């Protein structure tokens, strides 16, 4: 496995705080602005970066990420460019883990072997592919693990005790717990319910468990981070980007700055998580 992910999570465990995992859509609204956002994330307090790969038919995403994907595709983003974005980022940052997140078809069309080779060479550490459940492991998961790229699986409230071992079997890097049955950007359920689910997963794995779908504020990040090893924020960042754009969708000076400010606030949330929990 690429070592960045494990190193980052052990360092954070030693520090006694959860990770802030930030999602944004690669190429939204254009390549240069999107790369600038990516570069700004670690200094603003992001510990792990999820780089979204746009897809025309994002079946598990709410309106915010759907529209972000459309902006990005309209701006000419392709999977090759998304990989290039990671490569460009790596020139300046050798430590922050990068996880590509999206849907299978663009990878399938790119070619699985060629994709894994290029992703590894670009410094990508993990993959989250929404429409590849364990039943489809032969497609990408097994080849990725063989190459040393983490395959991060989603566990959901519908993943019952019987199914959990199947979901965990070929998972590496971390486990992504989806906080609710729903699409990205929905309302966050009660943090105490989520805490119970996280503890249940942690009984079955030594991997870090990160929680996402619905986390929008520093306060929520703090509450979720009390039990989870990481907090994933996506739609809130994507919405922040959307609100900074001109009427015809172009980036402004506020685009990168707005994301920085939001991530800084979220980072203060995760940094306060265990303090709050200990009180």
């Amino acid at each position: 496995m690429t070592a960045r992910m494990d190193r980052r999570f052990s360092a954070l465990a030693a520090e006694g705080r959860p990770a802030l995992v930030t999602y944004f859509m690669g190429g939204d609204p254009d390549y240069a602005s999107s790369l600038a956002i990516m570069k700004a994330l670690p200094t603003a307090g992001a510990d792990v970066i999820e780089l979204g790969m746009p897809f025309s038919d994002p079946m598990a995403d709410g309106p915010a990420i759907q529209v972000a994907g459309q902006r990005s595709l309209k701006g000419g983003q392709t999977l090759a460019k998304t990989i290039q974005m990671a490569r460009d980022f790596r020139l300046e940052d050798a430590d922050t883990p990068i996880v590509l997140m999206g849907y299978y078809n663009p990878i399938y069309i790119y070619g699985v072997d060629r994709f894994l080779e290029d992703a590894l060479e670009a410094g990508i550490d993990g993959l989250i592919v929404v429409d590849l459940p364990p039943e489809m492991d032969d497609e990408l998961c097994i080849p990725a693990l063989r190459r040393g790229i983490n395959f991060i699986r989603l566990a959901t409230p519908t993943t019952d005790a019987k199914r959990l071992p199947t979901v965990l079997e070929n998972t590496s890097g971390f486990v992504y717990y989806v906080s609710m049955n729903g699409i990205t950007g929905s309302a966050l359920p009660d943090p105490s319910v989520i805490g119970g689910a996280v503890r249940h997963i942690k009984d079955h794995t030594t991997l870090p468990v990160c929680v996402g779908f619905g986390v929008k504020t520093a306060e929520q990040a703090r509450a979720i981070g009390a039990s989870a090893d990481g907090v994933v924020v996506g739609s809130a960042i994507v919405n922040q980007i959307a609100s900074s754009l001109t009427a015809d969708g172009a980036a402004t000076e506020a685009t990168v700055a707005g994301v920085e400010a939001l991530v800084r606030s979220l980072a203060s949330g995760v940094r306060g998580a265990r303090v709050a929990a200990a009180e």
Partner: protein
Amino acid sequence: MNQSPYLNSFRGGPDEDGRFGIYGGRFVAETLMPLILELQEKWDEAKTDPEFQKELGHLGTHYIGRPSPLYFAERLTEHLGGAKIYFKREELNHTGSHKINNCIGQILLAKRMGKTRIIAETGAGQHGVASATVAARFGLPCVVYMGATDVERQAPNVFRMKLLGAEVKPVTAGSGTLKDAMNEALRDWVTNVDDTYYLIGTAAGPHPYPEMVRDFQAVIGREAREQILQAEGRLPDLVIAAVGGGSNAIGIFHPFLDDKGVKMVGVEAGGKGLDGDEHCASITAGSPGVLHGNRTYLLQDGDGQIKEGHSISAGLDYPGIGPEHSWLNDVGRAEYVPIMDHEALEAFQLLTRIEGIIPALEPSHALAEVIKRAPGMGKDEIILMNLSGRGDKDIFTVGKILGMEL
């Protein structure tokens, strides 16, 4: 023709992972996976449960009006001067198309699974109407997702669904057609997994849908096979059906797949021609990819982004096709050809005048292929075409194109 991997049969698929060759599978989000496995389990039980089959048969006879007639189109045959043309009259079913066969089957399954809410996607609105109908019949609330473009061009069906008590949710994403409606239905399903049954309207989606929908629609081919044997004492030479997602086509093809002498042709929407992007000929002009839970032929660009496509017929306006058709194409058991908008429109008008049957625009595509092939075939040869739906829903679309004020 290549050998089938299924022991000399073309009817053995899918395998236990839901694959037809490389096609099919279960490409869905984890949230849906337990549901899909449960659905499969319940479907496997129901398939062999005599009680379930009895109820299905009873509703088929008394609610749908099965068997649908097999009709010898004498005047059309004479007009074309070649092969004898028979129609399997699925347009005479309750609600006006073959879609009801599948809906009755799936709602019985939904009931068996204790689900209390039905969702569906629809293109032409025929599946939406059929879903709303069975939901009314079984007293369940029903939400139908329909692309905004289709809401407009299939207005009579939208009204029908509302009368039946369904909620029609227009989908504005993408070009507002069937693909976008399906995305939105999947999002609803992920959000409401506990009480909701997703009634997919065609032989596509994650396993077990392609197999299950096919089995519910195979009643078309089983009846037709018996009826033609009775009428002609032999099997047809050629079976033709229109292909959107592929449910009416696989329904009529499947019982004939192991009859070596029977040729199969699936007709895709050629739209305004295959040169540009304004068509829905997934097999003829697409390539294998993964969408909506299965691997199959898709219209897509070099980056794996799905294209929108176009067809005059809302029911064929889908950039994919059921996985079993992709496989039947690759092994050479069935042939897939495109028919252009204008050819379908001409066929629509011809049938209306010559046989007094107003066909839906979807089977008008199949009919246009019949019109091309029949004259070149011998008078002793037989074509069987699936007349999958009636055209009442399309009169506004056709009227507009023909410049008539309705």
